[in-house]
């Protein structure tokens, strides 16, 4: 398949300012294999996937999307490629922020046409396939991809753009080590025709994007730096004066960004500033996500002002940042899955003195080793009421004791919420399955 549409071709040196414009795929491909034109086998697969999905939904097993996608992929392993042929695809991957950035980029691209997306965060091939089968007509697709599957999904969907936000330690008992993931991205994306939109402030991301032909660097920041002291190129020690970074032993260093998050505004490659204060998603991390989403949208000709205006409409993403009333309190639901995520979340709540309710599980989707709790700086919660629940509340209790934080442990969310002062906002921070359980319980 042709990749047409990538503007000024040729290798872009690190730090090059890029204003590449990527057009949506031409009519030719759409006519050949687009929405209506799936081969018979693929049609059967899509139909079977939908039936399975419907059966699964009827049986009360979640949305049914993943199981449907799995069945469909078994019937036609090429299905994801077929379902994305004829569309301009954007992939988004990272340790943190990929669901939100996917949502923001999709909103921005809707300025120029319908966008298909796996908006609920089902980010492995089966879930992505199901989402693409659900919406066969949209010209654009913005797809969240699990870090481990990025090279595979990139090969199948042949995206126009790939956003790489960050890489840090997450679920080490089951995921590959962080640097191995960066290496896998680097090798897997070496020959991609996509334009990478990559975080210049994350050395592992810069390493991962290092062999790609077209890269737009975004200074999106990096709060958590504990996985980025060792040079991915030579193993030397990275030096990080202020925002800059570079290896003391080799030539690996921060590329010059074309886009940047600067305080409450983004700076585009022409030096224009767009205020991000109107975003309803809170915090520095979401301003960074919006900056990356704007850089992605601009590849398709969407002006940054327009993109940000559209992103301002997003209030919650798959329940995250949602505020719900429950037992006479307002709960703000925040997801934090790993040390980097907790750090960004503490930034969010640090401006308030609201009580904080923490919930930590260690099911297989969370990683069953809770050692990571000790990488999180819980001293940031000193001086405010801290309520602790979750399957691993005792691990958290020990952690908080050693951090010098006053806390109270409860057996369930109802008991904890009842203990918070009435009519107050409670900041709820939970890791992955704890978050899902909370959402179900409080009806978010």
């Amino acid at each position: 398949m042709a990749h047409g549409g990538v503007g000024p071709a040729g290798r872009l040196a690190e730090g090059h300012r890029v204003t590449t414009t990527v057009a949506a795929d031409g009519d030719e491909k759409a006519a050949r294999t687009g929405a209506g034109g799936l081969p018979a086998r693929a049609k059967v697969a899509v139909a079977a996937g939908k039936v399975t999905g419907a059966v699964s939904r009827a049986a009360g097993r979640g949305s049914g999307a993943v199981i449907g996608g799995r069945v469909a992929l078994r019937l036609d392993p090429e299905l994801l490629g077929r379902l994305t042929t004829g569309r301009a695809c954007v992939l988004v991957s990272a340790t943190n922020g990929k669901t939100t950035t996917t949502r923001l980029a999709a909103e921005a691209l809707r300025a120029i046409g319908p966008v298909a997306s796996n908006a609920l965060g089902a980010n492995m091939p089966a879930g992505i396939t199901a989402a693409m089968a659900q919406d066969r007509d949209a010209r654009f697709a913005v797809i969240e991809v699990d870090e481990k599957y990025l090279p595979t999904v990139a090969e199948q969907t042949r995206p126009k753009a790939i956003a790489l936000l960050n890489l840090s330690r997450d679920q080490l008992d089951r995921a590959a080590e962080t640097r191995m993931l960066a290496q896998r991205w680097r090798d897997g994306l070496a020959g991609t025709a996509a334009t990478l939109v990559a975080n210049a402030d994350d050395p592992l991301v810069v390493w991962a994007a290092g062999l790609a032909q077209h890269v737009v660097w975004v200074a999106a920041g990096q709060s958590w730096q504990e996985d980025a002291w060792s040079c991915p190129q030579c193993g030397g020690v990275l030096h990080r004066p202020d925002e800059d970074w570079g290896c003391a032993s080799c030539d690996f260093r921060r590329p010059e960004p074309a886009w940047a998050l600067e305080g409450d505004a983004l700076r585009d490659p022409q030096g224009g500033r767009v205020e991000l204060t109107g975003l309803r998603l809170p915090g520095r991390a979401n301003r960074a996500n919006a900056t990356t989403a704007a850089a992605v949208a601009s590849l398709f000709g969407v002006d940054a002002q327009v993109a940000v205006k559209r992103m301002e409409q997003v209030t919650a993403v798959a329940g995250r940042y949602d505020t719900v009333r429950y037992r006479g309190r307002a709960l703000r639901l925040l997801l934090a899955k790993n040390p980097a995520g907790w750090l960004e979340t503490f930034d969010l709540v640090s401006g308030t003195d609201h009580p904080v309710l923490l919930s930590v599980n260690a099911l297989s989707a969370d990683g069953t080793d809770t050692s990571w709790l000790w990488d999180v700086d819980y001293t940031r919660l000193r001086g405010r009421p801290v309520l602790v629940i979750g399957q691993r509340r005792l691990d958290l209790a020990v952690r908080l004791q050693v951090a010098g934080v006053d806390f109270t442990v409860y057996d369930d969310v109802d008991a904890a919420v009842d203990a918070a002062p009435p009519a107050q906002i409670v900041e709820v921070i939970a890791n992955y399955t704890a978050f899902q359980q909370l959402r179900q319980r409080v009806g978010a």
Partner: protein
Amino acid sequence: MTVVASVPGAGAVSGVGGESALRIVWIYPDLLSTYGDQGNALILAYRAAARGHRVERIDVRSDQAVPADADVYLIGGGEDRPQRLAAERLRRDAGLKHAVERGAAVLAVCAGFQLMGHTFYDEQEGILPALGLLDVTSHRGSVRCVGEVVADADPQLRVGQTPLPALTGFENHMGTTLLGEGVRPLGTVRIGNGNGAGSGTDGAHAGKIVGTYLHGPVLARNPALADLVLGWADGNPGPSPVDDGWHLRLRGERLVAVGG
């Protein structure tokens, strides 16, 4: 070298008794801190403060020299490449060796445990020399050992008159470690693998050096082990005056969860 002021939790105030601080060195957090290893440093500092010590925690990055004159050294877990880099740098730095000769206490976990031995195995470069401070030799096992571990501690190890209770932790490694004549196993494994599938033991100790494959971090699940190491460092063999209620509940829950 970063001197991290130790801030004890509610309770003890640092700086009361000692004219000289109890110094805790964390070796190479930039390379060997993959599995919450900072927790061991935090717990030692917390308990040392409760014992009345002024505590100084010193984080030594891998381009810095390891001081030879501290009291406790921590060396933690890491993947293949960081372990190889750490070995290269530590072999050129005599700081830890001199500290051990002076009688400093060492807690070494996972990759750090392997580095204390004679040799370890690297996927790319094969058998590589380690520091030779413990009489153990590590190899590549055939299976990845991931999950909860319960081990009965060596009955010779005591805090005061009390033998160490069962050790609980989480392992995640591919190592197999063979113990030489010069060490005793830290524990006899009841659940999990420890020093490799079928080994029957976890970790090793000799003198004031103790190594283990257990994360959790190990001292969060086993505060008595922290007191053992602190007793080696300050000569006070008794337990730290800390309310261990949450530690004990956590231990109890973990032991029940795995049927130990």
